[in-house]
């Protein structure tokens, strides 16, 4: 059986990279909760993970020259698009951050990051057992 170390960790390595990037974006939303005209952002996690796993972004801006600037944010060598959140309730100062929602998303994001860490930890332990042959 052929063993590929690059694929041994499955989707979790991309998941972790995306989750930590998403943590940054959500932390930004929470930090800017009182900034006038700030628009809350997020990434579409499902499509971002597909893009990261495949290594392509179908909606990426096409660059035909080495000095062209690619759009989006860079995660794990990929350019991803951030999207703006649809505000549930309009605010006078033009800010679209819902503090409670962002906090809930941040917590859920961090738990899911730790899930990936736990899975990876298990995989690494299995590999170690296989290497030692005990």
């Amino acid at each position: 059986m052929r063993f590929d170390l690059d694929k041994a960790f499955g989707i979790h390595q991309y998941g972790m990279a995306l989750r930590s990037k998403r943590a940054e974006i959500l932390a930004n939303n929470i930090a800017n909760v009182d900034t006038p005209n700030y628009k809350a952002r997020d990434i579409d996690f499902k499509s971002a993970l597909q893009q990261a796993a495949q290594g392509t972004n179908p909606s990426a801006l096409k660059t035909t020259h080495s000095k062209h600037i690619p759009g989006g944010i860079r995660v794990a060598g990929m350019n991803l698009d951030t999207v703006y959140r649809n505000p549930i309730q309009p605010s006078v100062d033009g800010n679209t951050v819902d503090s409670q929602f962002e906090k809930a998303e941040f917590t859920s994001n961090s738990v899911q990051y730790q899930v990936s860490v736990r899975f990876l930890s298990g995989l690494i332990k299995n590999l170690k057992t296989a290497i030692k042959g005990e």
Partner: protein
Amino acid sequence: MSLFKVFDIAGSGMSAQAIRLNTTASNIANAESVSSSTDKTYRARHPVFSTLFNEMGGNGVGGNDQVGGVRVNGIIESQTPLRVQYQPDHPMADENGNVFLPNVNMIEEMANMISASRSFQSNIEVLNTSKQMLLGTLRLGE
């Protein structure tokens, strides 16, 4: 590593909220500081927040520029009219018998204080959660 940036972002949020709390404290402390002329009277101060854009990663294409926290652009003095009270027996009264009181709105300041302290707490929670995420990553494979 993105998670380390979260510390900077939450830190900038905390420092901005601390400045906001500071101005609120100053406003409440000076709420009754009387003076005898309009230009010498204390005026309510409020910080102006703006989003900090990351110079390295930002490219401004399609609204996808990277944001890197919040900063205080400056502190403005409130332009609402000062309170004028007719108190001819007051030692600070002007020739017409008026004293000038700051335009501090106590209700507004209390609301600002609570909002600033809650936002500060949210940022601390973000910081703590990120710390746990990083420490969990350090123990990977143990």
